[in-house]
């Protein structure tokens, strides 16, 4: 697979179809990868595809396409971000070529909690999870533990937006219902919910890693940075943090495709994907539409229908 990926990337660069191939390369440690902007065939040799390739590379597209056409390596989940960027005219269709890789699931770093990280040599896929090769042997980890939660509930096939398919997607059997965490949370009473978020937002340091990691957060001036109308102060008290996260969630309503990068990026362990998931469910329930599927569809909150749900339904 890596050979096909590198060959394809070299071909795209040598033919001049794209100026950059955005993909993954080996990271600072064998259990991590790093994003790569390959601009020459030599740089394309560094491309990898393995369980550590967790990042959603679509986040780089709005900036990258300013230099001209770009190819980007995407998993089926990441491809949904590309669809949203196309829908919102942040990227022209002619400026992006998606290289879709077959993805069995990607690494949840928590799975390596019992492994000596300084001894890891490689992380590879097996038929039912991953194997971690260390200096002292191999450790097999089953997918329920090895993969990110979003992978365990993934039912995605080939994205429609695939320009280059490097292989068939594996047949998927979701083992977890992605709505579960929302249903669990909704057993809480209103007071318990406020306390839940109070506890989490007390930890928030407003590093904005969630915002920076999110492909949907591409605004040149974020509401959080405005000074004329100061929506949030520099303070990190729970109430101000609440305002920031609620607003960011609403700004992503109907646009968040559940890649989970926000939660992965958060250094404080705040369950941000819960907010995104809830909004995704409500948008589907109220407006019968899902983000990340149809690049020609109208943005959810930028459009309306006469038959939308109404606060006074008897009218």
């Amino acid at each position: 697979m890596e050979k096909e990926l590198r060959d394809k990337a070299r071909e795209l660069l040598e033919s001049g179809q794209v100026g950059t191939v955005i993909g993954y390369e080996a990271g600072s440690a064998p259990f991590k990868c790093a994003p790569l902007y390959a601009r020459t065939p030599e740089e394309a040799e560094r491309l990898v595809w393995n369980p550590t390739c967790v990042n959603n590379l679509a986040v780089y597209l709005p900036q990258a396409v300013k230099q001209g056409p770009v190819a980007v390596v995407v998993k089926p989940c990441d491809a949904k971000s590309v669809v949203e960027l196309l829908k919102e005219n942040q990227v022209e269709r002619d400026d992006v070529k998606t290289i879709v890789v077959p993805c069995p699931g990607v690494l949840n770093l928590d799975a390596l909690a019992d492994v000596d990280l300084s001894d890891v040599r490689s992380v590879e896929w097996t038929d039912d999870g991953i194997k971690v090769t260390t200096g002292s042997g191999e450790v097999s980890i089953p997918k329920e533990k090895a993969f990110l939660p979003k992978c365990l509930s993934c039912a995605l096939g080939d994205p429609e937006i695939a320009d280059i398919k490097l292989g068939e997607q594996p047949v998927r059997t979701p083992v977890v219902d992605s709505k579960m965490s929302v249903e669990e949370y909704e057993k809480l009473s209103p007071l318990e919910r406020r306390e839940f978020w109070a506890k989490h937002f007390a930890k928030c340091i407003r590093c904005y890693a969630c915002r920076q990691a999110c492909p949907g957060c591409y605004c040149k001036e974020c509401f959080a940075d405005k000074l004329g109308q100061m929506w949030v102060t520099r303070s990190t008290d729970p109430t101000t943090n609440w305002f920031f996260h609620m607003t960011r969630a609403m700004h992503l309503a109907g646009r968040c495709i559940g890649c989970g990068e926000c939660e992965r990026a958060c250094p404080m362990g705040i369950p941000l994907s819960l907010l995104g998931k809830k909004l995704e469910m409500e948008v589907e329930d109220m407006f019968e539409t899902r983000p990340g599927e149809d690049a020609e569809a109208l943005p959810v909150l930028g459009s309306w229908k006469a038959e939308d749900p109404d606060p006074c339904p008897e009218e």
Partner: protein
Amino acid sequence: MSDTAVTEQVETKETKPKEWEPKIIGFLCNWCTYAGADLAGSSRLKYPPNMRVVKVPCSGRVDPQFVMKAFERGFDGVLVSGCHPGDCHYAKGNYYARRRIMLFQRMLQFMGIEPERFHFDWISAAEGQKFAEVVEQFTEQVRKLGPFKGVTG
């Protein structure tokens, strides 16, 4: 100045703390709901004085952040009201508001803000009576819930 002219004033000043009254803020669209409120006033209809009004050009101007700011600042209840669908002065502003505000309403509930603290309605310029009734009913609804303890409290 006589002694009584002074002591009368001393005796009528509040000495006991007031009982809590719900503090409600209403984002009312200029063309319909605000006019409906005006009609309620000209018709001398009685309704509770607890609501402070912010006039917006259209319900479509109502950013969820306005509502969040109100709760953040400690308002006990928030009302958003505009023209009926199909009657928007700007043709479609209220259609956008409908999607945005109804979705936001579900988000508020998700975050643990009691849903009874937020009310979204359509009140036309002719519906002075409805305006008075909605404010009456909403004020009592919020009164029953008690003071708002904060978005994370």
